[in-house]
């Protein structure tokens, strides 16, 4: 049950949002997309260039640059083990 930055989570991993450390206007906008503590989130895929990446948060797919995802923290689900072997 580690807390990690969203940008560090591997593609395919999932977890629960722990906190969002961004300026009010940004975090408010993100909150309406579902980025609030307690919401489950999954790292879906990456854009061809590797950044931005696409996340599924509560059924919605949202693209975020890593520079933004770095300030969002999640608790990784221990059930999802490292698949990138």
């Amino acid at each position, binding site marked *: 049950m580690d807390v990690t930055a969203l940008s560090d989570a591997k593609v395919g991993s999932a977890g629960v949002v722990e906190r969002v450390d961004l300026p009010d206007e940004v975090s408010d906008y993100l909150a309406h997309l*579902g980025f609030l503590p307690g919401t489950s989130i999954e790292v879906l895929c*990456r*854009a061809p260039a590797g950044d*931005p990446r*696409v996340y*599924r948060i509560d*059924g919605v797919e949202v693209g975020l*640059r890593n520079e933004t995802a770095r300030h969002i923290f999640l608790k990784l689900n221990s059930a999802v083990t490292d698949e990138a072997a």
Partner: protein
Amino acid sequence: MSCHSTVAEPMEEATPVPAGTVRMRTVALIGPPNCGKSTLFNRLTGMRQKVANYPGVTVEHHSGKMKSIGRNDLTLIDLPGIYSLATYSEDARVAVDVLTGKMPGVPKPDCVLLVLDSTHMNRQLMLAAPVFSIGLPTLVLLNMSDQLEARGGKLDTLALARELGHPVALISASQGKGLGVIPEFLQRAGSRPDSGSRPVHLPVLQSAASCRSWATQVTARTNYQSPAASLWTRRLDSVLLHRVFGPLIFLAVVIAVFQVVFTIGQPLSDGMGTLLTSAGAKAAMLLPDNWLRALLRDGLWNGVQSVLVFLPQILLLFLFIGVLEDSGYLARAALIADRVMRSIGLNGKAFIPLLSAYACAVPAIMATRTIENKRERFATIMIAPFMTCSARLPIYTLIIAAFIPNQKFLGGIIGLRAMVMLSLYLLGFLAALVTAKMLNSSVMKASSAPFILELPQYRWPTLSSLGLRLYDRGKLFLKKAGTVILTVTFLVWVMSVLPIHGGQFSNLTSSVIAHMGHWIEPVIQPLGFNWKIGIGILSSIVAREVIVGTLGTLYGVDPATHALGLQAALRHDITLGGAIALVVFFAFAMQCTSTLIVVRRETNSWKMPALQFLYMTGVAYVAALVTNQVIMRIF
């Protein structure tokens, strides 16, 4: 799950007998972005709508009579797509003002249709709380029932209606399912004026977090089961966002768009040209041979019809953009392009206004209001007019069809003409890149705002929404042809027959306009342009399409080229270097009064539009000069 065509009422008692019916006039349609609101709007109004701007704001305002459900007496107002009523955005303010009856010129709505995407209720319900608290009778329409079912989601409308205190119905706007509840609701709302004021437990504080926890409680209590992710979207994304194939497909899509504009659009335009010319000739036969006939045929008809022939190609281009946008691919394209945008120091958010600048720079410049950072906003305004707007299409296709051979490569898949067109688009984009880079490194050092992009599930574009886009575009184009272009060609014709000597019109060569043209000719000669092109460029400062109208009129009046079509007349009159220089000039030049006026309005001073005009015209002149000189030496 409840049946499609029934509305779930919060209370099961029989409808009370109406004491007296109230006259309803307006119904507001509200919902978050991407909930399928516009599709529903089109269904209900039968695509008969008025587009207008609210006073003082740039938010567009669609309204229409609810014709399709037999309620011509009711006006449906389409509010902007918003996530909440409490955000700082202009869109949300407009929505609140309309709902509370504070928007000047818009009557207070009598009831509300709240559209939510049934496939992610936790998030969508967040908008319900603030909308309910306004206190109007509200029908909650849970859209995309087809997707919810197909992907195994579950929703209990009856339980939800009890929980929300408002009637709830599942619908599919794209398939037209379940819409019968809407006239029923309107009937009852009209006979029961107080039906909106039921006690509902709403979050006290309407912050995002409290609305969210309220929404999750509601969905948990009503046993909502969110659907599994669309398998098709996953599969398509694994290809379309693939490390290698993603960018390649992106490129292929872009090339295909241009190819089709030529292979299918060109014959259509040619056909339309033949049709319009013969119609004009036949109509002219009916008139006596006097100055009026000359004015109508040589002056107005020649000018206007030479612009009108481009309608099929413009519509085709917008059809493509519409398909890309409605299917959900455009959001992926933005994701792929973000990398490039960032490398030039532009906000990812700027991508959307820039993309819309491909249609027209005016709405694009208005859309920059969503960019909070002032410097980034100015940078985006500066570069938007370099994007190849549809007003450049007529002169581009005219010159390409006249001067570029119809050569095919790769077994006919790619044509030379389409590639030249694509390079002109790239040229404009390149100018935008360089300008942005310059602004960023010198005057406008900016911190970057975040790139947050919602990726909708892929879906088939509906015919009605595509039809509406084309209808809007076509109307705009025809309106311009009937007003601006008609006026300018009229003035050009008048100047081409003045002064009158002894009751006779001048020849073109001794007319006022020829004198004017010859006077400016030394400036444009190095670019490979003759005086007629020069007059065309001058007249098109009003709007870019005008040059085609002006050239149509001038070559129509000139006895040497009178019998030729416009393409042949141009080939007869200018060199290849001059022709290519002309389209290069148009790729860069700021030939658009509407854009200048909008920039003036948005920045509150003439400094910015003046700078923009001088800069763009300067770049255009130098680029055209270089193009002509280089081509002249090679060929």
